[in-house]
């Protein structure tokens, strides 16, 4: 690709690595959470659901600020990670992963929750009457019927992580190869008056985001994605 410097490429590769890591981790953690939110029977569902959707309305800087306090050397999280021998997370790739996971959580959990809810009770009743236990029902009924939700969740989680800026700014800083992601790199270019480079990166990001969303819509022919 023309117009990209070695540093731009480093930022690009880092962004992809971050988005892929976050997406995989979120799918693993978000699936049981979404399952519980969709089918749990306790009163805790609503407050937890509100908490999960909080990053949708919160300015990323607010989230990043509190994470900085929490995970910093004087925060509870920071003391825990130090005691575990992990050091403090802010201004590291791991810290960026944790922050991005929180920030992108609703974009993964909500499509999964919607997909699980859309299945309804009937297929699970049928499976139970045919002798399928709870775990069997999850793998033989819920997963295959909810796969469009997984596709949406993966694409949205990935694309949203690629596009984040505020959280990175607060907790990641701007360390090349560690926390300098594409959005930071574009900001740097603009700050330095390098509009041509900023243009090139921005266009790539725009094209990538559009392609990802288009692919998602093409792969789900039946109904459009819905998240609010």
């Amino acid at each position, binding site marked *: 690709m023309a117009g990209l410097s070695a540093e731009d490429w480093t930022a690009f590769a880092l962004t992809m690595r971050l988005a892929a890591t976050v997406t995989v981790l979120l799918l693993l953690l978000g699936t049981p959470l979404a399952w519980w939110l969709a089918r749990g029977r306790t009163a805790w569902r609503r407050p937890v659901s509100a908490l999960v959707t909080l990053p949708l309305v919160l300015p990323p800087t607010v989230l990043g600020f509190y994470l900085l306090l929490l995970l910093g050397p004087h925060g509870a999280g920071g003391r825990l990670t130090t005691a575990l021998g992990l050091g403090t997370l802010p201004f590291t790739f791991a810290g960026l992963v944790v922050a991005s996971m929180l920030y992108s959580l609703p974009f993964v959990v909500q499509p999964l929750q919607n997909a699980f809810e859309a299945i309804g009770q*009937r*297929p699970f*009743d049928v499976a*139970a*009457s*045919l*002798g399928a236990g709870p775990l069997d029902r999850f793998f*033989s009924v819920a997963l295959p*019927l909810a796969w469009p939700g997984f596709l949406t969740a993966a694409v949205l989680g990935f694309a949203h992580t690629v596009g984040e800026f505020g959280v990175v700014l607060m907790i990641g800083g701007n360390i090349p190869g560690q926390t300098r992601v594409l959005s930071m790199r574009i900001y740097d270019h603009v700050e330095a008056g390098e509009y041509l480079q900023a243009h090139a990166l921005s266009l790539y990001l725009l094209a990538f985001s559009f392609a990802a969303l288009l692919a998602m819509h093409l792969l789900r022919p039946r109904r459009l994605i819905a998240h609010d």
Partner: protein
Amino acid sequence: MTEVAAGLQVQLQYQRGEFALNVDINVPSRGITALFGPSGAGKTTCLRAIAGLDPDIAGRIAFAGDVWQDSSTRRLVPAHQRRIGYVFQEASLFPHLSVSGNLDYSQRRARGNGPVDHKVWLEQFGVDRLLARKVGSLSGGERQRVAIVRALLSDPALLLLDEPLSALDAPARSELLGCLEQLHADLAVPTIYVSHAIDEVARLADHLVVMEAGRVLSQGSLQSILAHGELPRVMSDQLGVVIEGQVVAQDQVDHLIELAFAGGRLWLPQRAERVGDRLRCRISARDVVLSTSAPATGSSALNVIEAVVAGRMEAAHPSQCIVRLDVHGTALLASITRRSWRSLALAPGSHVWAQVKATALGT
């Protein structure tokens, strides 16, 4: 109270809003037991509780000596461990699997010991021709046939059918009813059949549990419950008896068969029956005309049966009453106006002739 080891015992108490359920049902270990009643009677609620699909319903459920649920000891065997087959009102095939995928799903989880001879059922229900099809391309009747075979392949110890015909059009319904009749003859597994259609119940059921507004109105053998006319008031237009007998003659020219039963003989339209077949015939109370003298030869009714009036019941409409008749031990019901009852001076013990149109018997 001693526990009957065989069969199914169900005691349920349940309240949700206006609807209250309070039932004590006994299901014999053989044959088809119909849960019969108008919509809103609580039939499906009972069936779901028996299957273990509604754990909120309190009560006690025991099957063949195993306690499936006992709210007093907080015992609750989950649905997937109850070895039931459940067929829902609307087809409920897994949309992500083909027909054969749906059947495999069931067969892989079959809970019985011996191998299930599934080929017979595939052919009997015409499912063998559908195996490669996608679920979405099936007609309503085909889906329900697949759903029934799928339930059978899981090798259930108790089969639960929740109005399996109610979502079908008339031809599909009639076809599937025939399949179920055949199944009734072949299958040893006790079956509970929920329905609000008397013709289905009359053809399939051996035992009847009549329900209304969350309560059991009566339960017992099909013939005796129907003969006593113990149906909910709103269903009194469905009153009638079921007579079981043997085909003793057939008239090839007029396409009629003659059925011999304990109290006499009846002519009815021939479907596919042959001489020697055993047959059930429902005689609706509305289709019986009474006269106090032997009808003249000028009547079109093919069947004239001598009977004795055994009693009288009130009907839903104030103009009518239901007359219970005794035909040499076989019960018959006739729905007539109160005016006729008076003008014919009928009373228990009266000698009457009951006329039944053969065309009314073509169920």
